[in-house]
């Protein structure tokens, strides 16, 4: 096979996002995958590569069997938590640009709300190597049994170092994203929040309140990547993409620097590959497991100077009519938590001009982030040709 220098996203597919899908994880993946293939104008047997973005949902074997694929030229599975879907896109790009495969499918789908793996109701188990011992012996014994308190520690330390006197900036993240979700109309949020509603909502893991936490959801989103020699006008091109990892990746409570993560490195690599900089972006879909993560990332990826994220948000610069619209679909906070897979499909819609009422007018270039597994990160810059 001849290498194709440019990777483009030719198809996307989504299921509805709900609190109870009423069908299996595999079924959700298949519905989103078939929608992506149809959108990309190919049939299932044209797929010759699958990158599995997470340790939950459907395996490559599940998809191969169900779709009747006789063979795969490329497969891989990612172990980066919520950074997985976007990191999978990087693998898909490598596969198609190297010539290892032609049509690579990335599908994430899970009953993250109704299923047994609900993150807010189970210990953050990691089944690999020494991480299982870490989670139990040095964290869970101290009450760190779900993700929220870990991120709360980062938020609390950040607030201390930056002299915050209230969580009002977090309230504005929740408010703005809920407004976007209502415009988008495809998620769990059915109304826009006020700052007061956020500030009076119940505490979850201080400083986080209810609306600082993402809404766990059932659903799926899939992306189909192809390599081409010359992108045509209207093609959505993966212009830059990179991943990054924090020091002491599985030791968040002991990490130095404590607020370090893979995000700055991932962003630097993506911007370098794309040959552009933060001021060249028309929108950004930032992985928002918690409201704080949005402000943290605005600084980590260089959109704001260190410490300037709060003012940017308080000034509504992340709203649709702001300097850089963020999470135009409502994100994990308001649309629903699909591990960031719907961040990617939303970015593609923005670049196609099909994002509905939440369309950023004239969107040509957008950034997407993924973040998970206590600090792993991936960043992509997508551009319409």
């Amino acid at each position: 096979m001849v290498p194709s220098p440019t990777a483009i996203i030719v198809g996307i597919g989504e299921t509805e996002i709900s609190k109870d899908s009423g069908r299996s994880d595999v079924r959700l993946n298949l519905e989103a995958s078939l929608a992506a293939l149809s959108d990309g104008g190919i049939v299932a047997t044209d797929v010759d590569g699958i990158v599995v973005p997470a340790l939950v949902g459907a395996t490559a074997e599940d998809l191969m069997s169900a779709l009747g694929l006789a063979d795969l030229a490329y497969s891989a599975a990612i172990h980066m938590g919520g950074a997985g879907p976007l990191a999978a896109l990087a693998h898909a790009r490598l596969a198609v640009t190297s010539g290892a495969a032609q049509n690579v499918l990335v599908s994430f789908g899970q009953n993250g709300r109704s299923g047994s793996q609900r993150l807010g109701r189970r210990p953050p188990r990691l089944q690999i190597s020494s991480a299982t011992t870490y989670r139990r012996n040095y964290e869970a014994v101290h009450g760190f049994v779900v993700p929220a308190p870990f991120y709360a520690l980062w938020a609390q330390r950040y607030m201390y170092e930056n002299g915050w006197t209230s969580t009002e900036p977090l309230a504005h993240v929740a408010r703005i994203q809920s407004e976007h979700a209502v415009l988008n109309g495809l998620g769990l949020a059915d109304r826009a929040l006020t700052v007061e509603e956020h500030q009076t909502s119940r505490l979850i893991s201080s400083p986080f309140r209810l609306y600082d936490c993402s809404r766990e959801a059932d659903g799926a989103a899939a992306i189909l990547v192809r390599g081409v020699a010359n992108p045509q006008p209207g093609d959505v091109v993966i212009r830059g993409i990179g991943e990054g990892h924090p020091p002491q990746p599985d030791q968040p409570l002991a990490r130095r620097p404590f607020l370090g993560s893979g995000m700055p490195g991932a962003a630097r690599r993506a911007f370098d590959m794309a040959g552009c900089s933060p001021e060249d972006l028309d929108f950004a879909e930032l992985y928002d497991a918690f409201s704080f993560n949005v402000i943290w990332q605005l600084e980590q990826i260089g959109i704001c100077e260190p410490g300037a994220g709060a003012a940017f948000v308080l000034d509504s610069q992340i709203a649709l009519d702001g300097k850089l619209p963020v999470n135009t679909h409502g994100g994990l906070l308001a649309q629903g938590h699909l591990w960031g897979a719907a961040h990617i499909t939303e970015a593609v819609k923005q670049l196609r001009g099909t994002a509905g009422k939440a369309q950023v007018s004239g969107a040509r270039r957008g950034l997407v982030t993924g973040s998970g597994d206590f600090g792993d990160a991936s960043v992509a810059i997508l551009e319409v040709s």
Partner: protein
Amino acid sequence: MGDGLYGRTLPQPTELDGPYWDGLRRYELLIQRCTDCQSYLWYPTEVCSRCQSFSMQWTPVAPTGEIYSFTTQYQRTGSKFDEDIPYTSVIVQLAEASEVTMGGLLVEADPDQVRVGLPVVGVFVDATPEITLLQFRPQT
């Protein structure tokens, strides 16, 4: 996680971290220290992450320090800790080994008075006859 009378999650000591848990049973905090570069190392490790030496010694360290960050848990998680809500979990930076920050439960503290920088001292809690946990309380 049915862990006897204590009820909450208990550790499962390993070959690597056994000396830490043995120390706690004697009400002593032991941290690995590299005998070459003198760094204190936490979480327990097979090799010094600063200088790659395999020569490390479990070293007594005073269980005192300052709160580096904290969170108070209000939301139920389906674990036995739900009976303690609201409870505060902290990261403590050790006074004698400032490169070490470790997790712990904060006891005998009003959640409203917890802050970054609050001095704390260790409390050894016998969870079971075999397991002692290190928790922290505000220094008085």
